[in-house]
């Protein structure tokens, strides 16, 4: 055949080109945030595009001096971290039970847990407001933790359950004949084996939580409980109008913690820890 032959290195360049374009496409919003965030306000709303904007730290200084941004960030991190811890503490035993023990209605319970995500959040918004008001938890990060945990619990349980279902039953049988109790098996065998799944679930829960807006707005009424997502909304109204460059920077700041966490644990986000456990 007289077709064109490509060398291996040419193939490699093409691959890099395609992947590079895709990466650029995905990163575009982030780059755009940064570009807008660090230019003067006057250069944002212009009829003609500005190809080489002036660098300006105005918005950066503003968000830290005019707003308690550090506090918002702290609230976000605390509420999200707390909610993920609550989720894992509840979801790991639940997932273990759903994946391993046989009992009547097991599948129904599994489905019921998942069904909590099928309803529009607005339906429960008012009851939740009254619930927290009666408990005296309105406008606290404790309430945010509980709400985020409740929203994510089902998805976290389901992800961990699917990883646990994949663990060969032989491993548990082996541990049991070796003399391990159920709790020991969970702690020493199952959890290490599903660690990638637990981390995956935790990251997904984090991303959901950091983007949560509706309930946060409902529960938080002062900066005591404002999170980054609600803080963002504060830049859209008021006498100053829309402060685009500040919004861009805050959005970027909300994105950074999740991004850092994902980068740090990237290698656990893929499966493969059970490799070599059984057969090979």
């Amino acid at each position, binding site marked *: 055949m007289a077709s064109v032959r490509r060398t291996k290195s040419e193939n490699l360049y093409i691959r890099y080109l395609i992947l590079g374009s895709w990466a650029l496409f995905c990163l575009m919003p982030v780059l755009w945030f940064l570009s807008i965030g660090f230019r003067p306000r006057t250069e944002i709303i212009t009829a003609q595009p500005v190809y080489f904007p002036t660098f300006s730290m105005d918005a950066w200084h503003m968000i830290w001096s005019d707003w308690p941004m550090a506090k918002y960030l702290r609230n976000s991190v605390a509420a999200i971290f707390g909610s993920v811890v609550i989720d894992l503490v509840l979801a790991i035993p639940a997932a273990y039970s759903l994946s391993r023990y046989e009992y009547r209605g097991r599948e129904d319970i599994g489905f019921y847990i998942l069904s909590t995500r099928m309803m529009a959040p607005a339906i429960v918004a008012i009851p939740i407001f009254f619930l927290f008001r009666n408990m005296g938890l309105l406008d606290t990060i404790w309430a945010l933790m509980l709400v985020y945990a409740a929203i994510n619990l089902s998805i976290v349980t389901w992800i961990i359950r699917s990883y646990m279902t994949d663990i*060969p039953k*032989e*491993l548990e*049988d*082996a*541990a*049991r*004949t*070796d*003399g*391990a*109790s159920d709790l*020991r098996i969970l702690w*020493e*065998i199952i959890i*290490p*084996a599903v*660690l990638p799944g637990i981390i995956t679930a935790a990251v997904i829960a984090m991303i959901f939580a950091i983007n949560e807006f509706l309930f946060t707005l409902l529960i938080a009424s002062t900066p005591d409980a404002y999170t980054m997502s609600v803080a963002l909304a504060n830049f859209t109204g008021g006498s100053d109008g829309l402060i685009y460059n500040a919004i861009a920077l805050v959005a970027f700041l909300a994105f950074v913690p999740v991004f850092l966490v994902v980068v740090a644990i990237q290698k656990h986000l893929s499966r493969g*820890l*059970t*490799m*070599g*456990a*059984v*057969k*090979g």
Partner: protein
Amino acid sequence: MARIQLKGIQKRWGAFWGVRDVEIDIADEEFLVLLGPSGCGKTTTMRMIAGLEDPSEGEIIVDGEVMNEVDARDRDVAMVFQGYALYPNMSIYENIRFPLRMRNVPKEQHDELVRRAASMVELTEYLDRKPGALSGGQRQRAALARAIVREPQVFLMDEPLSNLDAKLRQAMRVQIKHIQRELKITTVYVTHDQIEAMTLADRIVIMQGGAIQQIGTPDEIYTDPANTFVASFIGAPPMNLIDGEIKDGSFVSDGIKIPNVGMQSLGKIKLGIRPEDCAVVSSDASHHHMTGEVYGVEPTGDMTFLTLKVGDMNVEIKADRDYRSDLGVSEKVAFDTSRLYFFDAESGLRVR
């Protein structure tokens, strides 16, 4: 030290019978092999001894003590699994140490015990590795070391060699038998491989459809099969089973006539003859029992498998190593008439 008695064991899942009427008395230090095709209930029987499955009925007695209600982790058994079941997150050292930790063996003894078990299976240099970094044979040895480290009352092995290649399997077989004899621990071993069963066992239990077909030493199972299932399951190639009838003291079938089989007219019956008890005789020999056409010749080096077409059946014969022939050639065969077996055509039970 453990004598295991299984009394009237039944295992049902709904309408499905996994195991029925299992009665086995396993002597202390015995190496007992449960042999049968997949789904015959052998693994279920073993798992009930381990406590991983509860019998629907019947008693499991170890040294006179009924174990039915004792949890798996409190039975002093160690199990080796088909898929090795090594803990993937722990090093081989930690894998072998795990049962010691779980059973509260004093910490200061751990290192010595782990190293001794590892050296018995020649795994000392791999103790720092994770299971994923070992080959299949090494993983199997690690699983074995984990079982022997605490010297349990009973070893249970569930097809431990079935994932290994043939050469390694043979080496591991010898090693398992050696270790069992050395440690003198009652062992129950499940396999579907008749060679493993024959070479390892003190006694073999042959199971099919959840029920025991025969219990006996390898010699008894081989030379004195109780029914056609046992006869055809043991031996490679398996025993030939030939439909025919006994008339006036002779067995007659298409192309086969054996006089004086020591039985009078019985009507329809199955004749069993092992391939090695058949001999090809020269075409002018007057003394022969069967005539057939050559269907296939398979030299293996130390012998030649000959398949003859007799009537509408194929009969396997182990011929001399230098036997060669062409397809369609007519051959005469003489049987060792002291090694003929007869089975009821309906029930498959041995007729003596």
